[in-house]
């Protein structure tokens, strides 16, 4: 089979979920058994679950792309028998804007504006992984000023908090605790207010850049962070009262959307999904970047791999982030926030008036960009949703030859068919919510 055949013969298989009768055992394997590394025969037997329905007893319906609980434009095709979900296929691409193609025409300095829009709930983590990859290609990863490194850590942890707070809000809303939605957004807004003070924007900051960060922290930043650190913990305790201990909340989430450690690993799931199955895998601890190896914090794990574990993990990760931010505040060094390397960092505005060389560097960096040596590199960090990785192949020019983002949501979304299988359609909403996909990152 050549490519031409696939395109031209008109038999390109449809993206959607096909009727049961047209399904081969191998496709069924994908939907049910592959994560257990089963044979096709075993998978075909599993396909009879729960009561081998004939085709006229089941119904294929679309959930999304405009369903409010699909967190954007995720479309799920569900095969239902009554209220039971037999099969599920996520269909994505509605937000695809070719950001990886766009990245090939932006210089390394402009690239931040592009990647920050992918996972729009944790933009600073996107910028961080992109910057770390570019710095590794440039070979300057050990020369980044200390203050910039610690600022990156501070912003990354605060961003983890804001992202998890938004998860708590939407998770509450999806499950019916509507007041939680208001609380979660309210607390997140306080964090975003700090970001606005530091970066000028609530989202899409383009603040962490190759070579350091865009600017120093504003005056009074420490008080603002301390305000957040004082304000949020009591609110988290309120959430515990509102949700964690509530019998209704527990009944709604416990035992829903279960996934085992083996399945999560096979599917490549990372972040809270993998940790909910009891695998203590957190890149901040296991493959430390920045100064995380000097930080004292716990990796929160679950034991059942259900939606409740994933909720509890995210709630407690906010507490761990607060612990980390306290340590960062104690140790925040002074000094430069950008690397003093004329080839990477544009000169300050004032220097341009007095130095011909500064003017030339300024002109070169902003018109052409800085050249990055040939090579390829993959850097991964722990975003709130899991491992976010950046693969850059450089041909020595000022723009990436190829920039690929390993988006955690894109991979995690593959768990959905497995988590939903045999569950109720009402639980589908809880399952989507507990995976916490950001469609901007899924579709890129």
């Amino acid at each position, binding site marked *: 089979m050549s490519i031409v055949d696939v395109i031209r013969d008109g038999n390109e298989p449809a993206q959607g979920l096909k009727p049961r009768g047209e399904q081969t055992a191998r496709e069924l394997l994908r939907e049910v058994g592959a*994560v257990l590394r089963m044979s096709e025969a075993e998978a075909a037997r599993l396909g009879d679950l729960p009561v081998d329905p004939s085709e006229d007893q089941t119904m294929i319906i679309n959930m999304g792309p405009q369903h409010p609980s699909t967190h954007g434009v995720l479309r799920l095709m569900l095969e239902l028998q009554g209220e039971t979900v037999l099969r599920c296929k996520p269909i994505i*691409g509605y937000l695809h804007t070719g950001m990886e193609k766009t990245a090939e025409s932006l210089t390394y300095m402009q690239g931040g504006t592009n990647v920050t829009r992918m996972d729009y709930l944790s933009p600073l983590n996107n910028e961080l992984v992109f910057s770390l990859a570019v710095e590794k290609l440039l070979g300057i990863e050990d020369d980044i000023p200390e203050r910039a490194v610690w600022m990156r850590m501070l912003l990354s942890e605060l961003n983890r908090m804001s992202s998890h707070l938004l998860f708590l809000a939407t998770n509450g809303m999806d499950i019916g605790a509507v007041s939680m939605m208001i609380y979660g957004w309210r607390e997140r807004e306080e964090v975003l207010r700090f970001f606005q003070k530091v970066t000028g924007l609530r989202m899409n900051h383009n603040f962490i850049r190759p070579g350091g960060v865009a600017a120093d922290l504003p005056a009074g930043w420490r008080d603002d962070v301390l305000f957040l650190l004082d304000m949020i913990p009591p609110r988290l305790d309120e959430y515990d009262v509102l949700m964690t201990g509530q019998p209704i909340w527990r009944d709604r989430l416990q035992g829903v959307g279960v996934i085992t450690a083996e399945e999560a690993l096979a599917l490549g799931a990372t972040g809270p999904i993998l940790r909910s199955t009891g695998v203590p895998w957190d890149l901040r601890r296991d*493959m430390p970047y920045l100064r995380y190896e000097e930080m004292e914090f716990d990796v929160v794990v679950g034991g059942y791999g259900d939606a409740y574990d994933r909720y509890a993990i995210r709630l407690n990760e906010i507490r761990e982030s607060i612990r980390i931010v306290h340590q960062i505040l104690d140790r925040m060094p002074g000094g430069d926030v950008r690397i003093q390397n004329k080839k990477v960092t544009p000169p300050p505005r004032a220097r341009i008036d007095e130095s011909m060389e500064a003017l030339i560097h300024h002109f070169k960096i902003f018109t052409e960009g800085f050249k990055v040596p040939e090579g390829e590199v993959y850097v991964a960090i722990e975003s709130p949703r899991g491992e976010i990785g950046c693969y850059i192949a450089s041909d020595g020019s000022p723009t990436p030859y190829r920039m690929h983002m390993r988006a955690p949501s894109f991979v995690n979304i593959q768990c959905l068919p497995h988590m939903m299988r045999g569950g109720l359609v009402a639980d589908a909403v809880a399952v989507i919510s507990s995976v916490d996909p950001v469609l901007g990152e899924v579709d890129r």
Partner: protein
Amino acid sequence: MSDSTSTDAPATLYGVPLTDSRGQRVLHPTRAEYLKVVKQLLSDTFTMCSDLTAVDFLTHAGRTLPDGIAPERFEVVVNLLSIERRERIRVRVQVPGDDATLPSLFDMFPGTEAMEREVYDMFGIVFTDHPDLTRILMPEDWDGFPLRKDYETGRIPVQFTADFPARPEAGAQ
């Protein structure tokens, strides 16, 4: 990593050239060795496939590769992770442009299902034995593969062509 040799001879792992890219280990199997090498890595605790992507080297043919590996148009890049040993390894395999096919890793790493679909969608590389090789991000009837280097960027025709009344000229009242 038992059989990686000293720095004198070219380093190999499972009989496949092993190089170092900015401190990261990269394996360069041929297409024929690809499945075998990945299978060995899987049994050697690399149980998670964290990323699978591709690069189209159409306009940058002269890149450095270890001896014995001929550059081809496409390169499929697989990032594997060993949770047990906290290690990463990268597998780069050359795929010729006139026969852009590669065996699927689906049987070993079911999580590559969506990633291989994405590579097919963006580069037109066909993964044999993939259970559902369809476009994933682009519409089903899309023409061409957007991330190929010979895919034009620029304006696309706008589909809404209704005749809107022309704006009055400034100061024309």
